[in-house]
């Protein structure tokens, strides 16, 4: 009996501990839209623990935009409310009128996470190429914090490395910590230890990080830093975690 209570107590403690990483998510139906795929891309936006497929509330974002050929267009008004991973998310069908790389970016409202006694703001983006034209794949948006790709962020085989520069206010962040997590949508991936749900790497002195995923699918990279400002909560000033998030799809290798 005593053993049962001890086990139950530990289980309760684990259940109450939010040990998993939060991710803003922008997931297109396909990161490489060909003319045979149609003339638009379908996007799904959420805030979640992507490996556990555990959704959280994504309030109406502060901004949602697309950048193409250097021009940024506000798409916030086009978002459609949708349940994503059993919680509030959004969808958008966006017409791709011309070839090139379309960069979709979202700034969410600050998310108060009492377990961390801090706010979370994940500046999230993903790159979609249309009609065989990858021009613009290395574009930097100038977000508050951002991962600028050094590797083309689509058209990657599984096991290829992905490299990016972590930036804050336009400057590289030396030795930035980058969390990496798999979007476990239908893949049924399991882990031998919870430590492997989110893998953690560090950038080098120039803010450059490198990662090679073990499988195809969507992989999220979140570079986390504490903001140089605070936000009020219950009459106190609280830290703000700023995340630079990029979602990258790796394709299944088709050779023998």
């Amino acid at each position: 009996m005593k053993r049962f209570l001890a086990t139950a107590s530990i289980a309760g403690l684990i259940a109450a501990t939010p040990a998993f990483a939060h991710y803003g998510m922008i997931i297109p139906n396909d990161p490489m839209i060909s003319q045979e795929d149609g003339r638009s891309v379908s996007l799904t936006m959420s805030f979640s623990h992507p490996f556990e497929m555990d959704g959280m509330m994504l309030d109406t974002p502060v901004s949602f935009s697309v950048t193409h050929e250097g021009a940024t267009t506000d798409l916030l008004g086009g978002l459609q409310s949708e349940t994503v991973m059993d919680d509030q998310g959004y969808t958008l069908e966006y017409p791709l009128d011309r070839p090139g790389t379309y960069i979709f970016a979202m700034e969410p409202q600050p998310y108060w996470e009492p377990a961390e006694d801090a706010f979370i703001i994940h500046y999230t983006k993903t790159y979609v190429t249309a009609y065989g034209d990858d021009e613009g794949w290395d574009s930097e948006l100038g977000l508050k914090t951002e991962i600028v790709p050094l590797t083309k962020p689509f058209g990657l085989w599984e096991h290829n490395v992905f490299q990016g520069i972590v930036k804050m206010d336009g400057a590289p962040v030396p030795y930035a910590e980058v969390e990496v997590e798999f979007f476990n949508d239908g893949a049924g991936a399991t882990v031998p230890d919870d430590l492997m749900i989110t893998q953690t790497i560090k950038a080098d002195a120039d803010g450059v990080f490198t990662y090679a995923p073990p499988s195809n699918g969507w992989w999220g990279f979140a570079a986390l830093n504490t903001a140089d400002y605070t936000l009020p909560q219950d009459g106190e000033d609280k830290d703000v975690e700023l995340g630079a998030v990029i979602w990258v799809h790796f394709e299944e290798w088709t050779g023998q």
Partner: protein
Amino acid sequence: MIRAAALACVLAAVPLWAAAHQMIVFASVDCEAVTVEAKFSNGNAVQQADVRVLDGANVLLTTVPIETDGTATVLLDSVDHSTGLVIEVDTGTHDNYWIVTPEDIAKNCQS
């Protein structure tokens, strides 16, 4: 659904050899003309190429010249576009195509 059916119909007529070789072909359409744009993946415009215009049954309708900026123009009045159009650009060493579906024409003509 209509677009998918139209696209499938036109695609069935596209010859298999019309695969991409790092040349990008795109065409936009309004009520008067199809504007073809051809460039290489490094951004350079295609300056010498044959531009062939075929219908949805893969019948050659016409050929048009390509300009030095990599564009070509196909006047809609000059071709039967009821089954869609396949625009082939062939430099001799690179070739690619763009499909203009009947829905593309209808949609852009209305806007």
